[in-house]
């Protein structure tokens, strides 16, 4: 695979789009789970806001912070994906996404709809770039900390 083909895998159109125009980049007043993430390698910071409804399902997911195209796109895609998930389902998806970013033969759970799966699959582009895996997983790591009620900043 040539260098430019490698890079097209990493910086796909959908990553560039979410990186430049992140969805759910806001701080909802009603959020009841908040996580603070920090990537010690590059200094990027992210706050993840989840709103869990009375039925135990995520009704809103949002984030704020600054980061590279990969971490911003990953956070944006994550917040689009999580609505309707229970906390346990969200944590389970974190495990799947982490595997997707690090393991060559990783697959996403069948329970995801095709659109969601396609969107998440673009994160697999970081497999070729071990130094960038933390960029892709920071938001997810922070989301898990928010659910677990960790008040402290978490580092990847």
């Amino acid at each position, binding site marked *: 695979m040539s260098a430019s083909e490698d890079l097209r895998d990493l910086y796909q159109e959908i990553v560039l789009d979410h990186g430049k125009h992140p969805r759910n980049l806001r701080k909802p007043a009603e959020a009841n789970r908040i996580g603070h993430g920090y990537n010690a390698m590059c200094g*990027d910071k992210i706050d993840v806001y989840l709103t869990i409804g009375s039925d135990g399902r995520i009704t809103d997911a949002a984030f704020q912070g600054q980061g590279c195209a990969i971490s911003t796109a990953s956070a944006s895609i994550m917040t689009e994906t999580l609505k309707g998930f229970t906390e346990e389902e969200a944590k389970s998806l974190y495990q799947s996404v982490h595997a997707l970013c690090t393991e060559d033969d990783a697959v996403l759970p069948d329970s995801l709809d095709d659109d969601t799966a396609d969107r998440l699959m673009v994160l697999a582009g970081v497999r070729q770039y071990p130094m*960038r895996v933390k960029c892709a997983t920071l938001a997810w790591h922070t989301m898990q900390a928010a659910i677990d009620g960790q008040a402290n900043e978490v580092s990847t």
Partner: protein
Amino acid sequence: MSLASIDPRARTPRLNRTVERIRQDFPILARTVHGKRLAYLDTAASAQKPEQVIEAMSRFQREEYANIHRGVYALSQAATDRFEAARGRVARFLNASSADEIVFTRNTTEAINVVAQSWARKNLKAGDEIVLTELEHHANIVPWQMIRAETGAVIKPIRIHDDGSLDLDHARSLIGPRTKLVAFAHVSNALGTVLPVRELVRLARAVDATVLIDGSQAVQHMAVDVQALDPDFYVFTGHKLYGPTGIGVLYGKGAVLNAMPPYQGGGDMIERVTFERTTFKPAPHRFEAGTPAITEAIGLAAAIDYVEQIGFDWIGPHEEELLTEATQALLAIDGLKLWGTSAQKASVLSFTLDGAHAHDVATILDQQGVAVRAGHHCAHPLMDRLGVAATSRASIGLYNDRADIDQLVAGITAVKRILKL
């Protein structure tokens, strides 16, 4: 032993000083990365090693290795002589008045920690002031914060101007009767600013403060004369000077070093040990507990030989010319901002690209064979001061050439194309 009168430059034969010839000394520069020619522009993080250093270390390990300062057999004596000759080589490099003023450490960070844990713990008390600068990397901040926590000393950073130069008016207002230590970089690792070291030393001397200069980013670019600069301490690391990792240098004035308590206890630093009491050797051995990095010290001496054979009269203008060319080429790129534009600058091009994060820039440059640092450059307070999370940093060494700069510029063009900027 006085070494000041020996000028090694008068004795060493001149190499054929062209960058094409010099590049052949660095085996790694012949390799490719991702199928592309390697443009290594991260010397400020660590320099590549010339064959002369690799071979000196390899030959010592293959043919001459033994522990030092203990064996009566020939190999140990020869190894001891080589190790102490390396110390003398460093002394001549810095124009120290004696080899006894050269303490070997693991790196710059450890050298600063020796001064903090030994000199500062003994000499500082609550309310005493440590003056730093906003340009410092973490190695010249955190050791002093640890001392602050122990002693109640106060840390005061000298401000910088927006172009990365030091605000000397602020330095004059900060350095006063309470100042006990002024510690600062000779050259900034993140921005390349060359600090006004003589003026800072003069200000410190006027109030009887002790001075530490961090020369990590200076000794590979310019001749340093510690007797002319007159700090109490001057520190640097081997691996940024084309030498190996694991070896650093703490220069200290003899009287200052010998008034300091040991840093670590163990073998090699003692005169006599009983269970009741131990007496310590004078400097530098007092600060070198245990078996040191023998091979690395020999590698460092070989690196100094190499650098001085090329000579700062060649290195200085060569790097200056490349820095000027690269600065002009980068400034011509739409959306690129250079950080650190002080008139007094060495080696470093720190930049951001509108709409792109430094890590995306560095990943794409890497795919073009261009190695640059991206991030906070171990200087969070400086990044906060500049209001930028991260920059990409290209840094120049004696082996860089115009093709490296061309490749950097072409690489940035590729970044803009791939990220659709």
